[in-house]
């Protein structure tokens, strides 16, 4: 039960389990961003959820094509911002009015005016840290090991190639059917990625 929940949470971060026979999933290469967007739309429409796209640069409209919905990173940022605001207010009040009150030219020990810069800065700081941290968390990063790295072609994902991979953990995954679906959706090349160290090429 707990294992299943952890598996599901990891899947939302894009960290998928391999099948018991070591098949991690299918990696499909598309020839350009346009066909990749089309492909992603078709893969989503076919009911697949455990899939991701890998491109050298961000592609406008890709998150909609993949059916990703609204990112939750905004809420994490809001929590960070409110924590920063609260922390700074407490810090200003406790240090200047409680722990070490000093009279400086008759100003009140605690006043809102000089505290606002601190409140602003800590709000921004924690918002930014939470935003970046939340982004890492939601994406399952950092991730030094990924079975996709066994594919030789995949190194070009940061250079000039456009990939889509469907994980074997997806409930609709079937080696033959998914492969033909990918080819139909416009993939140029499809390969099977194994978790224990190699990938086989299937040419269209």
């Amino acid at each position: 039960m707990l294992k299943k929940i952890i598996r599901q949470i990891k899947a939302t971060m894009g960290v998928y389990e391999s099948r018991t026979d070591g098949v991690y999933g299918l990696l499909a290469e598309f020839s350009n961003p346009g066909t990749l967007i089309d492909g992603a739309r078709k893969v989503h429409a076919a009911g697949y959820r455990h899939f991701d796209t890998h491109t050298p640069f961000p592609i406008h409209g890709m998150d909609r094509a993949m059916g990703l919905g609204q990112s939750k990173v905004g809420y994490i940022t809001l929590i960070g911002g409110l924590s920063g605001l609260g922390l700074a207010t407490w810090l200003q009040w406790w240090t200047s009015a409680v722990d070490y009150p000093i009279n400086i030219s008759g100003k009140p020990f605690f006043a809102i005016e000089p505290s606002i810069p601190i409140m602003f800065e800590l709000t921004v700081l924690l918002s930014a840290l939470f935003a970046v941290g939340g982004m890492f968390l939601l994406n399952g990063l950092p991730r030094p090991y990924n079975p996709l790295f066994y594919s030789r072609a995949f190194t070009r994902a940061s250079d000039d190639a456009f990939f889509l991979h469907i994980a074997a953990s997806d409930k609709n995954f079937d080696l033959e059917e998914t492969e033909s679906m990918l080819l139909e959706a416009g993939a140029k090349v499809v390969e099977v990625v194994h978790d224990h160290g190699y990938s086989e090429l299937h040419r269209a």
Partner: protein
Amino acid sequence: MRDSLRGSSPLMKLVDPLAPTKSDRYPFTGGSRSYIIPGLIGVAAIAVSIVVGMSEMFLEQFYFSYLIGWTFCLSLALGCMFIVLIKHLVRAEWIVALRRIPEAVAVSFPLLIILFIPIVVGVFDSHGPYHHWTAEGIDDPTSNYYDEILAGKVAYLNIPFFLIRIGFYFVAWTFLSSRLWRLSILQDVTGDASISARLRHLSAWGLPVCGLTTAFAAFDFLMTLDPHWFSTIFGVYFFAGAFMSAFCFTALCVVGLQRAGMLRGVATAEHYHDLGKLMFGFVVFWAYIAFSQYMLYWYGGIPEETAWFKHRLEHGWETHSGILLFGHFILPFLILLPRAIKRYSIPLAVMAAWLLAMQWFDIHWQAMPVLHIDHAQLHWLDISCWIGLTCVFVAIFLWRLSRHAIVCEGDPQLEKSLRFENV
């Protein structure tokens, strides 16, 4: 010849420096009623305000109310000019589809100088808004009106130099805005892509000129109302409100034009989203600048500097200050924060209208405590002058807009702007 634009007749130059051009793709279809009705309302409201205001009892009130309403319109025109200048300089694509609106607002300077006449009268009137420094004998030690501090500022604060400065601002603004307007319309007519580069050249020197003149205009029109006080950030403060209002006004116009059946398929949720983001951004920027100004004076605690804020924190003005804090920053900040608000036309339009009202309230808050130092008040002349001037301003703007295409159809970036998407 198709590629040359004709100028308009001398009187029409107040409305539009160019003769009408025809547009097949994006014409204004609102009809003449859309600008005649607000125009008549505006003229009536200004006429009533002037007639009543000229009576002894309301004269001082009238000058202040009129100045506030006029400065509100000025801030819209200046803010819109900044939008256009910055757009050209950074080659922003997203706003190309909506650019005609700020461009058309920015050509309002000839109209604004005509509407400035009552204030020029006020400058020479001992009941006028600037009487604190225009009074006779202010630098004469034998005079009853002698003021040592103002005597030291007399090289800058004197009527001839004041009028020369204002003349200079208006020449610069009119030249820049009508040049931006002319080249943009010329691009519609000819489709010449190289005009974009000429607009960029113009903006490169136009932006600093506009920045400096705006800062000094803020000193001259608003800060000199209380000539003992000074704030070096005051120009930035004025700019912050003006720039925010310009985005609000543009958003409101886009929503209005779409409801009237124009700009369909041109302005999308993506464009609303960006306008909303900039509104949000400059709400925060305004608060940042307003607070910076306040905090430095609070920290310094020097009486001659804090007096300006003291007047705004007593005798009922503290309510106005509170409304400003909540209405101009805290509430809009929280409301504009979620993504959805910025992507739907109705909530965005409501926020834009609210923030425009707050911009006026902000100018009122800066100016009016000078007149009513011991009791806060909102006079009906404040409202009638504001409504009257704004209606005339908007009516002339719509009239100008109706004479040309309402989208920059000759801009080579237009197609990209129409297809623009936030990631």
